[in-house]
Structure formats: structure tokens, C-alpha cells
């Protein structure tokens, strides 16, 4: 048995296993900390900073920061909500997000966070970068216009599929997602059955011939905000019902 530590999030006492991340510990207790570059099952890298919390007053990414006995974590404060909103708004203006015709709309985590945060328009000027679409693969399309450089595809392909199909080239605003063939997706060993194909939070990696199957109104985030499943699990436990 690993050691159990207790600490607080927004004043609520939480028990967790030593070594767990703050994000995982919070999630186990039904507290949703927004995240984009992290996905359950992947090694966290702390890239997007959407999960930023304050730990004993200092900003830290909840997906990488381990719990420790007695720490005081702030999660749902106006300041942190505002930082998260700003990150999401920057991601929208840095790419080219035309949700009105995007195949991922309604099931997209970036869009869902914007909805959850009540963002009606980004405050920053749009950059309209020129980005490439790679439709060479027979079953999969890569649209870099929508890529938020979260690296989920890269880590999934490397760590779960054992392939390393994806990687990044360049730095800063010029950073872009590359494929290991240094050319086209079709020249890689990416398969439709790879977990990397399902790792993308946005509509940058899509399966061909699967778009628009779910009617508007029934898509994942049409009714319930992202994070609701984490939060309801706790409510059920508190109310004495069965946790899902």
C-alpha cells in the first residue's frame, strides 16, 4: 500500500496516494481540473498550462505536480479561471478554427472548454497562420489548421503504439507538427487502428469517412459541459448512489 496524504483543494480536504498528480487526485474525488494536453493514460508533460492551479500560492500545472501532505491548492478561483480562459482564447487565434464546418465540432475538447468557460469571442487579434492539410493517408487526415500542439498524438504513438509517427519541428510561433516520414502521413506506418488516431483533442487528426454522423444536439458536449462526468461521479458518491 502506498502512503496516503491529505491536503486541500479550494478548502475541501482530499486524501490521495503519495505520488499521484494533483489532477488525478482531484479527479478521483470528483473535482474537475480543466486540461488539454493531458489525457488519462498518457505521461503528463505540462505543456498547455490549462490545468494551472496555485499550490501554496505558487502557480503549478496540476497534471504534472505531485500531491504532498498539507499542501493548499486553489483551483476554481476567478484568477485561475481567467488565466485558463486566456490560454483557450490564444489557442483559438493562433490556429484557424472554423467550427461551423469542422468535423470535430460538438466533440472537440478545445471548443468544449471555451463553452464551459463561457467564451463568446477571443479578446486577441486573429493571426490567420498558413498551415498545411495532409490528406495523403487513405484513412486518416491531418489538418494542421486545427492543431494546438498538445503533443497527445506524439506521446500516444510513441508510448502506446510504439511507433513515433509524430514529432514537432521548429520553435515558438513557427512550431508545427511533423510526421516521421518527413513528408506525408501516407509514408508513415500510421494505421487506422492506432490509438494515436483517437488521441487528438481537436479536429486535427480525423478518420476519413466518419464525419457528421452524430446529429447536432446529440454530440458529446452539446448538452453537458466538459468535465461533467468527473463531477457527477462525485455527486453520486456523496449522495450515496453508485459511482459510475
Amino acid at each position, binding site marked *: 500500500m502506498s502512503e496516503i496524504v491529505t491536503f486541500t483543494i479550494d478548502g475541501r480536504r482530499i486524501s490521495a496516494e503519495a505520488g499521484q498528480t494533483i489532477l488525478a487526485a482531484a479527479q478521483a474525488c470528483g473535482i474537475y481540473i480543466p486540461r488539454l494536453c493531458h489525457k488519462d493514460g498518457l505521461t503528463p508533460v505540462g505543456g498547455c498550462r490549462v490545468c494551472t492551479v496555485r499550490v501554496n500560492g505558487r502557480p503549478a500545472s496540476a497534471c504534472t505536480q505531485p500531491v504532498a501532505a498539507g499542501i493548499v491548492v486553489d483551483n476554481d478561483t476567478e484568477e485561475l479561471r481567467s488565466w485558463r480562459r486566456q490560454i483557450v482564447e490564444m489557442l483559438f487565434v493562433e490556429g484557424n478554427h472554423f467550427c461551423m464546418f*469542422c468535423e470535430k465540432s460538438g466533440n472537440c475538447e478545445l471548443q468544449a472548454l471555451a463553452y464551459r468557460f463561457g467564451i463568446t*469571442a477571443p479578446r486577441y487579434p486573429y493571426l490567420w497562420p498558413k498551415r498545411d492539410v495532409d490528406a495523403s493517408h487513405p484513412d486518416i487526415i491531418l489538418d494542421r489548421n486545427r492543431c494546438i500542439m498538445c503533443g497527445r498524438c506524439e506521446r500516444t504513438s510513441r508510448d502506446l503504439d510504439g511507433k513515433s509517427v509524430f514529432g514537432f519541428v521548429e520553435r515558438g510561433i513557427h512550431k508545427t507538427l511533423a510526421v516521421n516520414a518527413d513528408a506525408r502521413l501516407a509514408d508513415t506506418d500510421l494505421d487506422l487502428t492506432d490509438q494515436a488516431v483517437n488521441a487528438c483533442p481537436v479536429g486535427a487528426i480525423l478518420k476519413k469517412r466518419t464525419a457528421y454522423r452524430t446529429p447536432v444536439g446529440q454530440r458529446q458536449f452539446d448538452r453537458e459541459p466538459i468535465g461533467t462526468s468527473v463531477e457527477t461521479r462525485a455527486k453520486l458518491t456523496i449522495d450515496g448512489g453508485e459511482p459510475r
Partner: protein
Amino acid sequence: MSKPRLATCSLAGCFGCHMSILDIDERILELAEVIQFHKSPITDIKTFTEHCRIGLVEGGCANEENVEVLRAFRRNCDILVSMGDCATMGGIPALRNFVEIEECLREAYVDGPSTHNPDGVIPRDIELPLLLDKVRPAHEVVRMDYFLPGCPPSADTIWAAVTALLSESPVDLPYPLVKYD
């Protein structure tokens, strides 16, 4: 007391947002009881002659005429609302932002597969508004007070916004009404 006035316009948009206004159905009668439509494609009033409480702006700015109309709306309306994705983020017209303007014009007037233009003339009459270098959302041209995303925003979204503004409350859209598609 006279009724508050409402103005609407369609800049670089497709009139879909105006269709969505009409889609409030019989509630438009309720609306007509409490407001007066001023400059709008619905009334066909072309110029502002009176100050308005609310201006609903469909579309972003693609040309100099759009900018002029938008500025007139800012001068003549107390509260200006970006209605729809074109106004809030540029929308479909902004797809041309990835192509050089000369190439856009050549494709439209010279090289397009259905174009018959043997002299290769690109229209440049003084009557025609000049295109901007890029299509811009409304708030990159003038200050906008509220944003109603959606392509188009649903009738319920427009209704929620207009009724809130008429009761002097801020527009605070509930979760199901914030949609980008």
C-alpha cells in the same frame, strides 16, 4: 416615452443570422410591441436618422463599405452586438485570408472554371468598394459590447440577448446557447 430603437445590418455575412432573427417566429410580434426597428434590411431603412438603443451586426468586414457601415452603427447605437461567427471571428468569408488578394480576384474574375472574361479585366470601378487585405471580425474594427457566436446563432440566443438588453440586464448566455456552429 417612445420605444427603444433597434438597428440591424449584414456586412460580410450570408443573411443567415437575419434568418435566425426571423426564426424567433411569433415572438417577433412581442418584439415589435416593445421596440421599433430602425435601419435594417427588415425595414429597408438605409440611413440612420435617429439614435438606436441596440445594433445587431451580422458579418465581419471584408471591404471598405463594411467598415463605413460598421462605424456608422458604432456612432448611432448605444449597444453594439456581434451576431454570428462572421462578426465574431470572420467566418466563412475569412477563408480568403489564406490567399493573396490578387490571387482571389484572378480566381473570381479571370481563372475561375465558369468565368468568361476574354479580356481578363478585373473590375475596379469607383462605385465598387475596395476589398480589405484581410476579412476582420467586427471587434477588430470598432468596439463591440456583446458577442453571440453561432453559424447562425439560434433564434433563442438572439431572443435571450435582445430581451436581456431591453430589460437593461447584461447578456449572460447559458451553456446551451454558447455554440460556435
